[in-house]
């Protein structure tokens, strides 16, 4: 048995192919990556563009590159002020964009063949920082201790949409970094869920806020999980379930970060 590590965050994640993709033989074009560094949980979630022929790879490589850049930047711990976050994310997204360009150059294809959205987050006891390019969603749980459960979940990142339902921004476009949106929250966030847009209409209510009857059981599930690998399997099975597929035929991703009790050893 290896020595256990002091761990602040439980991290669970799954990306599942949508039924429209399984029907047409396309791979899952969603990807995700996460890790814990210096007591902070770091997450990246990516959704490859539908008709871009290498977007599955684009999503995977972009999320991994962004995570590696964030991990390096956070190795000294959470920034003492909110200011550094814009640069941390700008660098992470530039690294991810550059990764797509290298892939494109090696393959002799244009960058847009690897087009993907990218949503990133860092979370610690000191707060939450989120960067958005595209149409993913981030829902955060900050207990207020009040009786109003709905007040505890808030939308930390919302989808960027053009006028039309099938328009958003992609990392591969030339002006991508100009559309990056960064937000830093000082609330003591205890749980965070990052999702791609396949689940959008299932998890946000008519006021475009987190639909609590979805997020409460998701949180309860995360708390109950003993074994992360088993938890990931159960999350994937849920995303692949008939109940979910009846409502969306898109690829689906959920990454969940939960604050563990102090002194928890993995």
């Amino acid at each position, binding site marked *: 048995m290896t020595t256990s590590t002091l761990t602040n965050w439980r991290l669970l994640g799954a990306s599942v192919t949508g039924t*429209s993709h399984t029907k047409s033989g396309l791979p899952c074009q969603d990807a995700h990556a996460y890790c814990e560094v210096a007591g902070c949980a770091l997450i990246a979630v990516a959704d490859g*563009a*539908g*008709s*871009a022929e290498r*977007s599955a790879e684009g999503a995977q490589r972009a999320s991994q590159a962004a995570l590696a850049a964030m991990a390096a930047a956070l190795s000294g711990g959470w920034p003492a002020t909110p200011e550094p976050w814009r640069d941390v994310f700008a660098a992470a997204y530039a690294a991810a964009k550059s990764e797509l360009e290298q892939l494109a150059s090696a393959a002799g294809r244009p960058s847009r063949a690897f*087009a993907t*959205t990218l949503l990133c987050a860092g979370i610690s006891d000191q707060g939450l920082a989120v960067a958005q390019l*595209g*149409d993913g969603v981030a829902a955060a749980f900050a207990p207020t201790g009040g009786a109003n459960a709905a007040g505890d979940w808030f939308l930390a990142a919302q989808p960027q*949409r053009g*006028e*039309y*339902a*099938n*328009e*958003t921004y*992609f990392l591969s476009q030339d002006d991508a970094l100009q559309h990056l949106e960064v937000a830093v929250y000082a609330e003591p966030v205890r749980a965070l869920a990052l999702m791609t*847009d396949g689940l959008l*209409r*299932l*998890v*946000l*209510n*008519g*006021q*475009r806020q987190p*639909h609590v*009857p*979805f997020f409460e*059981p*998701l949180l*309860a*599930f995360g708390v*109950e999980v003993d074994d992360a690998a088993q938890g990931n*399997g*159960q*999350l994937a*099975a*849920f995303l692949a379930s008939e109940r979910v597929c009846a*409502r969306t*035929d*898109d690829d689906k991703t959920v990454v969940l970060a939960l604050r563990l009790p102090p002194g928890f050893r993995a």
Partner: protein
Amino acid sequence: MALTVLDQAEFADNPEPRCPVVLLLDTSGSMHGAAIGELNEGLRAFKEAIQADRLAALRVEVAILPFGGSVKPIDVRADTSTAFEPGQPFVIVDGFDPPILTANGDTPMGSAVRQGLQLLRDRKEIYKANSVDYFRPWMFLITDGKPTDEWHASSQLLRDEEARKGVIFFAVGVEGADLQILGQFSGQRAPLRLKGLAFGELFQWLSKSLSAVAHSRPGEQAPLPPVGWAQVDT
């Protein structure tokens, strides 16, 4: 897999994004007989084809603006338990009752295009007010003649809206249509001439195209199916 508390996760109930299409249909006197008959059949085929795609049936919304003598939107709702609002004639295909159109009168095409654009503009405002997402609207015009009303201003309005990417416009000329005039309505796309009275094929194509749009995700240029129903001018 064992039951988990995830089975208790409830989903929000949100409206599907909408793909609005307004059909501007020439019902002038010259369409009388076989032409209007085939057109009506085509509308039935259109509904059936889209309904086979459950997602498209809930996303594609239709409004029909026949123009023959006069122009005004008609009530094509299957559920007529509430009053018809001519300002909001759109209905999702699942709730669409194909009309039986009759042919009579002249060809107020200019007015039809102007009204069609207004209907789409108003529909977008309703979507925005109700937080409903939408795809770029389609305007589809079928004629067997040429306008008998003032049409230059309308065609400019349409070209401007196309340039703004506010609408996707297709024009189809049936035998007898003046394609030269029809061609002036769009800055993006030449009009096509229908093969005989192949309305069935035309509406199958339209339903496939709209289904492709209804399924399209960010970053997808939904390629349109091949246009088998059109004549190639030699």
